[in-house]
């Protein structure tokens, strides 16, 4: 059997997904037996022009991590869509927007003002902003256009599969790679993970449907290691998050933050978590309810930590 041709790319991401790919450990040798890597900017020296030259559909699969933030990411997404038989949104950024997607609470101008003018360590009295094109004696220099709105990969091009996680756990990555190597492809659009149920399903903590009067942030309390974190007042996202990760965070006494995305069939992860959270508040009195939810700092940013661009409204309205 001919070896698979595999490409990996990063758009708006932190680089953690590329490291997560290596977390498969010695299985990387199995991968090397079965596949040739034709493009991987973090590890090998290729140029975009190398990819532009190869015929369409000549790459078997592309693991694309990172959200689409600027014109470069968009162009490369289109390029790899054309050149790859299978395009996989690998990791939360390309699947749902993730942390870079929180920029959708703002727009381009607000982000530029903050980054290039307002930050305490910035000295820019003439308010010089980055320009897409600039004329210098040697000719015209160009950098990618920065967009107002962060998009997911699937909002940019047609995507075949999704691999959740920030970053994906080793076993999830291997499940995706094994699927490719063995050629047992699931239906298009499948989110590749070991579970379609919630993280709670894999979490060993004791749940008693206890209601709560006060929410805490993780630094404020040392939670009991046996009892459900949500029932102790921590914003544990497990109820609204797809499992398959094995619930490592709750087992390390930290609340789940929701990186595996919504459970199967849920359109809006943030709204789903909001619903679950409202159910554990122990009050029927409007004023007391207001007092309890006042402790939730930045609710929208917390509920949509990984999924704002992929949510129903995709971004905040700016007036």
């Amino acid at each position, binding site marked *: 059997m001919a070896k698979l041709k595999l490409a990996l790319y990063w758009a708006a991401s932190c680089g953690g997904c590329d490291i997560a790919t290596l977390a498969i450990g010695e299985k990387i040798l199995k991968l090397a037996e079965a596949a040739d890597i034709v493009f991987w900017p973090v590890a090998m020296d290729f140029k975009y022009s190398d990819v532009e030259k190869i015929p369409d559909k000549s790459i078997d699969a592309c693991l694309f991590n990172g959200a*689409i933030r*600027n*014109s470069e990411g*968009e162009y490369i997404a289109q390029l790899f869509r054309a050149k790859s038989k299978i395009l996989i949104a690998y990791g939360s950024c390309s699947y749902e927007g993730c942390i870079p997607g929180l920029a959708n*609470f703002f*727009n*381009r101008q607000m982000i530029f003002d903050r980054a290039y003018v307002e930050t305490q360590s910035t000295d820019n009295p003439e308010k010089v902003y980055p320009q897409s094109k600039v004329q210098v004696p040697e000719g015209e220099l160009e950098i990618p*256009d920065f*967009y*107002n*709105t962060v*998009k997911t990969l699937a909002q940019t091009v047609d995507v075949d599969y999704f691999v959740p996680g920030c970053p994906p756990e080793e076993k999830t990555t291997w499940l995706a790679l094994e699927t490719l190597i063995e050629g047992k492809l699931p239906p298009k659009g499948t989110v590749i993970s070991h579970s379609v149920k919630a993280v709670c399903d894999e979490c060993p903590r004791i749940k008693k449907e206890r209601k709560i009067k006060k929410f805490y942030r993780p630094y404020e309390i040392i939670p009991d290691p046996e009892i459900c974190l949500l029932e102790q007042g921590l914003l544990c996202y497990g109820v609204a998050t797809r499992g398959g990760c094995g619930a490592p965070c709750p087992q390390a006494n930290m609340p789940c933050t929701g990186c595996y995305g919504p459970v199967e069939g*849920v*359109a*809006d992860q*943030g*709204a*789903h978590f*909001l*619903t679950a*959270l*409202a*159910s554990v*508040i122990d*009050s*029927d009195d*409007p004023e007391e*309810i*207001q007092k309890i*939810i006042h402790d*939730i700092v*930045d*609710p*929208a*940013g917390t*509920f949509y930590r990984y999924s704002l661009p992929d*949510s*129903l*409204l*995709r*971004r*905040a*309205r*700016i*007036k």
Partner: protein
Amino acid sequence: MSWEPKIVGFLCNWCSYRGADLAGTARMKCSPNVRTIRVMCSGRVEPTFILKAFQLGADGVLVLGCHPGDCHYTEGNYKTLRRMSLLKKVLAQLGIEEERVHLDWVSASEGDHFVSIVNDMTEKVRVLGPFRQNSEEEKHG
């Protein structure tokens, strides 16, 4: 044609829908801007429904349930109250004006109360204008 506010109204089967029915049979005059969706309980209204309504072009969303203590399912409306309180905070961060989402209680005998809620909300949304989702921000990608 001039713009008219489009409001999606989720009405609970046991109290509010009957209150609306009463307003109709009693021939009370009422703004025609609310599109009614009957649900078994206001507790059925997931925040997702409200976000979806905005995504599909609603200018406002009205949720009506039984008065606290009167819920046919004992405490569905309390769940709604908690959800809506939390949802309002999220919507504010997403740049959606507070007046575009309204939760209220209407019993089966309160046709007049239903009419005043609908008229009041229609006028508030009319002042805010159409809900345009992100037209300016989407232009650049």
